[in-house]
């Protein structure tokens, strides 16, 4: 697996602009190149993915989408394993009955394997419960005995598992690619004629959403807040204008002044947390507060890969990234009035340039994901569909596995 290692390394260096899709593709190649032992393929795959995932997450913990994808791939492996195991249980029951009578020598082995299969089935079938969480035994440790029986069907099963997992990961990649379209399909349900929409910064999801409504012959105007210091809003404004939408570009400071004339705020998100809070480009909390003050609906568009199963704690600090001050001030600009030699050693001037804002769930009116529209309070349930509880903490398991 040195080749995957190389892949991981190049990915890590390019993680600055990593997307969920790239992560999924990387993990797919990790899975496909992973040599699966005859026994316990699922465990081996999970371990491999976790090891890589841990590296990815550690490289940029704020890039939550990467962690999300790692968890979803783990979830996929578990799901596939589960479905194969349930199928195997049915077969095994039949074979166990037939074996039982003619071959005593293999008796113990079969019963053991049957028990192991049952245990494996139990562990995978069981819904996440406190007991599974507390049983800190890694799945890889629990599964080993699983399939020590029947070499013939084993090999086919192992191939099948890997094949199924890769198939499912492909589906996931497809989902990520098409999530914009799926979200955009819902645009006409939310945008009416002559609507005035405000957005901040630029998001592919948002622009697709607006284009979709425009293509359905809805005419509406868009206010774009430029989203300093990245000024992505300029880009969005250009795209919208190219599509023939009435667009007004405003500074971020004018958001409060203009929000009273806006019918709806539609924004993209960096990540959606399990409590319904949103990690979004900096300045978003300002928009959300202003929207709440004027009772303007605040709608967040997010593909399902942006749904993060974690609950945030102090997200403004812990899930934030402080970018270079040079985006706000030129380094040379203030060198003349900085007196480094004197004083207590702490510089007089600090420049704060965070990349993200946290919007608490109470300020969000609606989430539109590729699975439809949802309330912030429902996000935790939606998220539970995509992830298995065992994977919530990737690092710890991986360390335990190592």
């Amino acid at each position: 697996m040195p080749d995957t290692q190389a892949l991981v390394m190049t990915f890590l260096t390019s993680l600055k602009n990593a997307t969920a899709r790239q992560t999924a593709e990387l993990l797919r190649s990790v899975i496909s190149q992973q040599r699966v032992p005859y026994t316990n393929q699922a465990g081996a795959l999970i371990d491999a993915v976790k090891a890589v995932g841990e590296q990815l997450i550690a490289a940029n913990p704020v890039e939550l989408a990467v962690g999300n994808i790692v968890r979803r791939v783990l979830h996929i492996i578990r799901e596939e394993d589960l479905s194969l195991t349930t199928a195997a249980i049915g077969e095994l029951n039949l074979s166990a009955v037939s074996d039982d009578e003619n071959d005593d020598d293999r008796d113990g082995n079969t019963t053991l394997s049957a028990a192991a299969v049952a245990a494996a089935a139990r562990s995978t079938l069981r819904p996440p419960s406190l007991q599974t969480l507390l049983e800190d035994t890694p799945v890889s440790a629990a599964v080993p005995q699983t399939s020590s029986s029947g070499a013939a069907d084993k090999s086919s099963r192992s191939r099948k598992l890997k094949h199924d997992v890769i198939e499912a990961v492909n589906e996931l990649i497809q989902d990520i690619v098409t999530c914009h379209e799926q979200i955009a399909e819902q645009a006409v349900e939310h945008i009416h004629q002559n609507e005035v929409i405000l957005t901040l910064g630029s998001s592919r999801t948002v622009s697709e959403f607006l284009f979709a409504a425009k293509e359905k012959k809805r005419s509406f105007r868009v206010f774009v807040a430029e989203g300093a210091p990245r000024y992505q809003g300029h880009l969005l404004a250009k795209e919208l204008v190219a599509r023939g939408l009435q667009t007004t570009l405003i500074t971020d400071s004018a958001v409060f002044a203009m929000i009273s004339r806006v019918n709806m705020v539609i924004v993209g998100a960096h990540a959606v947390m399990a409590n319904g809070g949103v990690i979004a480009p900096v300045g978003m909390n300002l928009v959300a507060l202003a929207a709440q003050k004027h009772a303007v609906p605040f709608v967040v568009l997010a593909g399902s890969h942006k749904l993060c199963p974690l609950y945030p704690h102090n997200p403004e600090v812990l899930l934030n990234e402080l970018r270079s001050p040079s985006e706000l001030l030129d380094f040379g600009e203030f060198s003349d009035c900085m007196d480094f030699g004197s004083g207590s050693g702490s510089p007089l001037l600090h420049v704060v340039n965070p990349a993200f804002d946290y919007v608490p769930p109470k300020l969000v009116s609606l989430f539109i994901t590729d699975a439809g529209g949802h309330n912030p309070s429902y996000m935790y349930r939606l998220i539970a569909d995509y992830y298995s509880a065992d994977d919530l903490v990737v690092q710890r398991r991986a360390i335990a596995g190592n």
Partner: protein
Amino acid sequence: MDSRRSSRAVIDPKVRQVGFFTSAPLPPDRTQSDPPDPIRSPPLADASSPGNSLSPVMIPPPRHPSDSLLRLPHSPSDAFPPPSPTTTTTSLGDFSDDVTAASSPPPAAARVRGRGSSVKQQGAASSFPGGGFEVPPSVKAPSSVPASGLTTVSVVKLPPGISVEVQSDRALNSKPLKEKTSKAERRAIQEAQRAAKAAAKAEGIKTPAVTALANAKSAKSTKPSPQRNDSAVVVAASEKKGGDRSVEKDRKKDVPHPRMQYDDKSRVQKLKKRSVVKPTEARNRVELFRHLPQYEHGTQLPVLQSKFFQLDTLHPAVYKVGLQYLSGDICGGNARCIAMLQAFQEAIRDYSTPPAKTLSRDLTAKISSYVSFLIDCRPLSVSMGNAIRFLKSQIAKIPISLSESEAKATLHSDIERFINEKIILADRVIVKHAVTKIRDGDVLLTYGSSSAVEMILQHAHELGKQFRVVIVDSRPKHEGKLLLRRLVRKGLSCTYTHINAISYIMHEVTRVFLGASSVLSNGTVYSRVGTACVAMVAYGFHIPVLVCCEAYKFHERVQLDSICSNELGDPDSISKVPGREDINHLDGWDKSENLQLLNLIYDATPSDYVSLIITDYGMIPPTSVPVIVREYGRGQLWI
């Protein structure tokens, strides 16, 4: 009432004079009857100054009285000498004549006597503008004094100018003055106001932006007959009803004039004809802001420069200030106001009345033309509007008998006084108040660059308070950078960030200090765009928001949003990010009809977000703004 006044006979006038500090004192009185007096009056002023300096500065001038004041003081000498009221028949003289005619005999008698003692009386009168200057800001007592001042005024209900006379009169005769006097005088005042308002209205059509107090036109309509003086009592009685009605009318007229709406085509056409700058209309105008002027930026400057030698009507100082507004070299409410007033000072100094014209009328017209030029360069701020109103009222107050040089000297000192008292001293008082709100260990957040806030921070630093400053800045002006530079130079510990990160930085902030371009009478703070965002986030974090604003920037207008009235800046500065050449997505945007760039200059902060407004009258909640505007504002604006 009587007893109270008699007991305070000595101090009272002085208190009022000092209180008159807000409004313009009685320069006409002084300048008119002792024209050569600059030399003579100082000793007298000195004589009265000790009491003066002791007395609280902040007695509010009664509002109606002060209104009338501009005419009454000079009316006695001008119009009263019975034989020849009409010989000096200029419109102004007539007008004031009318005012006195409306008042009843007792004051008339008082005046006659007052004239006898004119030296003394006028000495006192002349003393107090000086007194107003000399009083250090520290003497200004905060809110408690105004309160008492208010009661006095409401009891006495006499215009200060009159009361001065009355008391000097009593001093001579020790004959108690009756209430009747004041009533009659009040009626006279109302009449005067009505006439003034009518005049203002007539003038206002011409110069919509500034309500001028020119009285020329209305004077004709109210032209009195000489014998009215004789039958003054009758007239007063007969005018009682009219006077009552006029109060109502006055109230109605208190409503500020509607602003120029730029979607009104006919008026825009008219305006264009007059304007010097001739800006080209912006192509992609924002639909929502059709009512505001939206011009191509950058086009006016070269045009203006080329026109320099054709603009012979324009004083070079005014021209210079206009260019500075246009290029943005001077910005900020106070700086713009001071620059404008100083330019006017120079213009007035070089002014000479054309033959066959009167100074007050011609100079008013002149100032109006300057103002419209300045409006062309950049729309007036509220502070400038108020200052212009003050100046015009001062011009209108100049008595006709005054020689030109004296009148000019008077105006010069009036302007000087306005700058000193309303801006410089007011800022010092604000600093004094605000510093009490800064404690050790505080983290103070400020937005943009406000001159008042900067002074507060520097003063607190000089006092040795340990605090940190968070400077929040915004595109496209980046005013905060300049403030940051100045504060870092002074050794203050600063944190700099953009307004986007306000929610991030607000966690560590303990106080928010904001400047304001104006405070409107519904408590709305009208200030640089983004102020509302900062106040909103601070409110969300339960952090007190303190707005620092001089009282001369208060305005009786009300506003609910930032759209109905605003100013639009250069749209190109939105699409370009200085120092970031990679942001060039919008190069060539103007080809597209669909794209508009909106560069708002101001926004309106709802009063809910404001915890406190620090002004030269003390620290008040936003709900008290209308009180200040009512009790102090008119004195200053309408004198």
